């Protein structure tokens, strides 16, 4: 019984920390909550009005939602790029930071699930996937695979982080057999979540734009650019707003990962473009629509060229030594993230449908309602990520632990100041 009680106490303290912070924290959380609520309202409209409120059509039935979903699965998978250096190559710069990568993965998967849900015109029908009530159709359907691997990845990460943080809280040495096997399963699993997502596209034999073996490797390569790039930016924010020490060496290690992944990604893109255009068959029609427009229909042309320009800028900065300076590195990361988002979103999802098998060219533009929902899910994801960080940083720093549990409960009352914030105050005063 005490085990359960101890764990509940731990959860309670985590919850309390999540609601405490300085004015910057409240302002940030307030803004994110406001956007999330606006999006929730937009989603309520979509629920009432159906998918007609979105820009999707019979012809182009996947839009910005699936685009975001694809991108975010990649971000989640990319956490493995911190895990591999730490657990296989024993990189010491990253070892304290691997938790942040995993937290980002958790937040990204939450966003993925949200994006999939809003993409359903009748979300209640999702229940049909539950075996018994409906049918999961497991080995046959790629979608079933995707549900299984995504949920599994969420559980794996939640277990690893949860266990490590709880051990830190209790001041126990984590038992290796209780998390190391899961770490290694998670490494393979991370690759699988993105490969399975790729195969959602590749498996559609009728869509020649997607039905190519290279889509899988490209997904992985671009994810390993965008994910670590996001982590680089996130780590710098953490360094600025908390007292957590993030060494520059860690950022530079991530830089070399982004660098190599970006080179591979560019190489794969060249291969793909060559295949689409050199043979000059009708199979290249979607690519032509994407890059040059067909019959004056060129809604995607500005998007893709922006993406390519951003990626080239990012690549150029990354291969040059200037990216060792953080300012340039941040520019490169931002460019890469936006570039890859566009490329995987508007550049991959939409043109797969155009032209349709009947030869129609139907253009897709997200509506305002749709855009609002997308922003809200991002805001929600950031919210989740912030809360997770807010909880785990004090635990990692040791300012919230078993020892000061009693003190907090005794003096709890309604004080907003947790021992942790008090500890921070003491620390800053000492520094003065």
């Amino acid at each position, binding site marked *: 019984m005490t085990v359960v009680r101890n764990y509940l106490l731990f959860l309670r303290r985590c919850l309390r920390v999540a609601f405490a912070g300085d004015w910057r924290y409240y302002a940030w959380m307030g803004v994110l909550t406001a956007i999330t609520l606006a999006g929730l309202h937009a989603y309520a409209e979509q629920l009432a009005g159906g998918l007609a409120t979105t820009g999707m059509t019979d012809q182009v039935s996947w839009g910005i939602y699936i685009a975001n979903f694809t991108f975010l699965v990649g971000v989640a998978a990319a956490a493995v790029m911190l895990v591999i250096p730490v657990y296989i190559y024993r990189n010491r710069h990253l070892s304290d930071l691997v938790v942040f990568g995993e937290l980002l993965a958790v937040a990204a998967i939450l966003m993925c699930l949200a994006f999939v849900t809003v993409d359903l015109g009748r979300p209640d029908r999702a229940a049909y996937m539950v075996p018994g009530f409906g049918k999961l159709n497991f080995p046959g359907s790629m979608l079933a695979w995707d549900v299984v691997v995504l949920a599994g990845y969420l559980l794996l990460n939640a277990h690893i982080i949860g266990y490590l943080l709880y051990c830190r809280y209790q001041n126990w040495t984590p038992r290796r057999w209780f998390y190391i096997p899961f770490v290694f399963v998670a490494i393979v699993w991370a690759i699988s979540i993105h490969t399975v997502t790729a195969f959602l596209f*590749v498996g559609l034999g009728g869509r020649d734009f997607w039905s190519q073996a290279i889509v899988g490797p490209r997904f992985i390569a671009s994810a390993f650019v965008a994910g670590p790039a996001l982590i680089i930016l996130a780590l710098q924010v953490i360094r600025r707003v908390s007292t957590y020490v993030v060494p520059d060496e860690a950022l530079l290690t991530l830089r070399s990962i982004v660098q190599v992944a970006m080179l591979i990604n560019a*190489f794969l893109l060249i291969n793909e473009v*060559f295949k689409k255009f050199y043979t000059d068959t009708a199979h290249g029609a979607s690519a032509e629509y994407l890059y040059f427009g067909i019959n004056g229909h060129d809604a995607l042309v500005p998007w893709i060229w922006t993406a390519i320009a951003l990626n080239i800028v990012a690549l150029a900065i990354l291969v040059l030594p200037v990216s060792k300076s953080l300012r340039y590195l941040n520019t490169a990361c931002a460019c890469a993230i936006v570039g890859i988002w566009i490329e995987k979103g508007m550049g991959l999802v939409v043109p797969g449908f155009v032209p349709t098998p009947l030869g129609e060219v139907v253009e897709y533009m997200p509506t305002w309602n749709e855009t609002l929902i997308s922003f809200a899910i991002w805001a929600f994801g950031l919210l989740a990520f912030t809360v997770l960080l807010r909880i785990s940083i004090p635990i990692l720093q040791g300012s919230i632990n078993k020892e000061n549990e009693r003190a907090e409960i005794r003096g709890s009352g309604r004080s907003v100041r947790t021992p942790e914030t008090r500890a921070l105050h003491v620390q800053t005063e000492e520094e003065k």
Partner: protein
Amino acid sequence: MARNGIPAWLVFAGRCLRAGATGDWRYYAWIGALGAVTILGLNAYANQAVAGLATTGLQDQVPWGIYIANFTFLLGIAGAAVILVIPVSMYIKRNLQDLVIFCALLAVTAIVMALAFVVVDLGRPDRFAHIFPGWVPSLRVIVLAGYLLLNLHIVVYLLYCHYRNRRPSAAFYIPFVLIAVVWAITLHTATAFLFLGLGETIFWNQAIIGPRFITAAFVAGPALLLLALQVTQWVASYDLRERALPFLRMIMLVAMVFSVFLLLNEVLRNYFRSTGQPFEIDYLYFGLNGFRPLIPWIVTAVGLNLIALIILVLPAHRSRALINVACICAVVGIWIEKAMGLVVPGFIPTPLGEIMVYTPTWNEAFIWFGIWAFGLLIFTFSLRVTIPILQGTLSIADSTPGEAGIAAPRPHFT
């Protein structure tokens, strides 16, 4: 600088030639055996040149065979050898600098062999002249010849500096190394595009072919280099293994994992979607209408690759005996996969639905072995010259004027 009127570089060249022509009985036996096989191959080629490609197993339906397969494989080796230079020059692993020379030597050998394979693949080799710029400008020839020149420049410059006991000036070779690196990728990608560009042959017309070429080459190249280093250590007391082995192993491991991942993607792509039957891949892995000549090949290839992968992933790869096994498995496995697994099935079934069985003839096989023997001959010769220079036993210091600048080469084989 000249001594007794002979320019130093000429002395250098003369001494290199002499060093290459001397050695102990093992050296002569090895060179002799290779020479004999080469000459047998030359005889076979003479047969082919007289009677035409009818002496080979190639047909109208399967016009590319073992020659093109070897060509593809060797270009991969050439490319990978130079790409290994990236970590050495960029991340400045100074203690691996000797490896740059080995890599470039392997690249030069592989390109010479690749060119030989292209030549024997021509039914009318005299028409080869038509691909030179002026007749029909061809990107591929420029790429290949340029690559050969780049590598020759790097090797000869570095060796000559070693010989003269000078520090190589970075300005004079690093830019070339970097160009060669980009060039190497271009070379290999261009080879992949030779296949990929054929829109009708669905088996090849896939964007993943390019990346698969590169990753396979990144396994086979280091594997060959590693084997070469093991042999070098065995016959000459020149040991680069302590420094180079972990590095080469690591590259092989990563490339092998990538390679398997790409293969899985390709197989899944062909089988998961329900449209059209993937005839070519069916023919390769399971046989078509009772014709299953490629199955033993591909099963061997997949088996060997898996053995190599398993050895590389497990800590067992730190044992030197096992790493040799892994290297041999990987080289043979990848060779088969590229040859019988990529070149031949692309043509089968033909657009008319015919299923033709291609098996190399003996004459063809002789030419094939002849070219490999010739390549090994070049590689052995160049190592025979290089190693004394790197060890410092062949240097400008011991070329005495009394012998007209040509010192008697010392026996370096222990």
